């Protein structure tokens, strides 16, 4: 395994995050976000690197990573498909969409397609209750969905790769 190192630019971003707080530690959440952006997921090497920058122990950083669900502890697809199935979405067919994505991509919850293009996650309420049902692809929300729109969305992502 190669050693993980932040790019110069990202190191500067972390330095700016540290300046927001009276102590270094609170920047750990932002540093992990930046690491995930650069590396795709939070590996053991990432944890070591973040720990050394913020003068924490690796175990301490791992404790943060494992508490928050948005830090990926394994590599995910290029397009991480998050389907909300909480009540408001469920009432509008959220589970139907979850099943549809599962079938179309032929993967289960928290799995990645063989070509590493897609991964799937059943997520809790994303704050799209008034525009349910919804899917988030990486950082972007797609709302007011139906079966047809989901098909179009997945097809367009497949074409883009």
């Amino acid at each position, binding site marked *: 395994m190669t050693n993980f190192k932040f790019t110069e630019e990202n190191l500067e971003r972390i330095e700016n995050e540290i300046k927001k707080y009276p102590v270094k530690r609170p920047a750990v959440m932002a540093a992990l976000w930046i690491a995930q952006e650069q590396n795709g997921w939070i590996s053991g090497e990432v944890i070591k690197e973040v720990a050394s920058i*913020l003068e924490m122990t690796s175990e301490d950083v791992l404790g943060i990573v494992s508490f928050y669900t948005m830090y990926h502890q394994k590599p995910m697809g290029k397009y991480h498909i998050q389907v909300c199935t909480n009540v408001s979405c469920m009432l509008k067919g959220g589970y139907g969409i979850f099943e549809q994505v599962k079938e179309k991509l032929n993967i289960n919850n928290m799995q990645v397609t063989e070509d590493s293009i897609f991964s799937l996650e059943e997520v809790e309420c994303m704050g799209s209750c008034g525009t349910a049902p919804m899917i988030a692809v990486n950082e972007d929300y797609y709302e007011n969905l139906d079966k047809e729109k989901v098909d179009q969305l997945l097809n367009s992502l497949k074409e883009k790769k």
Partner: protein
Amino acid sequence: MEKIVLPDIKDFHKIDVYEANGGYSAAKKAFGQSPDDIIDQVKKSGLRGRGGAAFSAGLKWSFMPKTSAKPKYLCINGDESEPGSFKDRQIFEFNPHQLIEGILIAAYAIGAKSAYIYIRGEYHKWIKLLAKALEDASSQGYVGEKMKQKFGIDFYCDIYIHKGAGAYICGEESALMNSLEGKRGYPRVKPPFPAQNGLWGCPTTINNIETLANVPPIINKGWQWFSAIGEPKHPGTLLYGLSGHVNKPGIYELPSGTLLTDLIYKYGGGVPGDKKVLCVIPGGSSMPPIRGDQIEGVKMDAESLKTVGSAIGTAGVMVMYEDTDLVKVLARIAKFYYHESCGQCTPCREGTGWMLKILNRILAGNGSISDIDLLISVANNIEGNTICALGEAAAWPVKYMVTRFRDYFEKRVSKEVVLPVANKVHSMRGTVIPLADVKN
């Protein structure tokens, strides 16, 4: 009806449009008065927190020590993770400057030089939108050290955004502070309360996004004006979030005390297919559900909802029509709290899992009549026995849904008391039903 938090003004999120409509004049007005005067006005306005507990905002500010050797902090809670709630994202998107102005006034009132806005990690887009607004406000001198010059005062406040990473519990104020400190989001034992011992052990106030967005108009138009809107005991407008089985879901800013039936039929365009309403959760998934045949005349504000055995919460109204499978809904709610329990307190960590298992059993058609009381028993043993309110949030929907729709749940279980081995042990301990009732 005039809208206070989300006015219908085009491009209001842009700083020049906000300024042209009197933006940042409330801050200027506030800085010309003493912090105590500001707290007094907000107290008299009757503004109550919009994050769920509906606590008096002015009173909360008054708990902050007047003098402190340690720095004081202001936290703004934009974690917004309660299922059924989606109001704060509208403020980030459509009126971020009023929020920033409210933060400045609150910081001045309590004497905080740093304010942290905690926003859930999923809101990437809205974090960027707010960051842009914050940048614009800073470059205009409204935020940070430049405030001294801009307003001609000896006070300034820096505002920072802290991005969460997916944890419902961080909406609980003490968990939010731990998360902000770069720790696991575990709620803290209270007392000490944040006003004494908050962020990094310093005096801290935590307010909801919507609460602070209400502050600038109160300062500008006076507390009398605000206190006359809606219900006197819970004045102002609320951002009602309407979702589920309604024709026009969305956020509706209306006076407190708006009729629940008006929300559903007048504003929400009624129920699809003109079906009957079976159940309504009036304030986000943790609030006690109300039966559809009891929504007539129910007013949507903190005090009125108390009288019908529910609570306003975040005013996220979830409507379910007659074809809804309530067992499925409740099992989904239970799954959520099971997933989000932080695991510190045994009753919540274990109890949420038990409730989910029992509900899944009923959903699969394997439930027995004793499961209904077992659910209520587990819920009762979580409620009040945990560090934070997630215990109640998990227990209430189960307890009240099962109690209020008992006939519905009884139809879904067998009349035979069939207890699996594990439950037999419990029953022998007298925790579920008397031993004599156990037939197998």
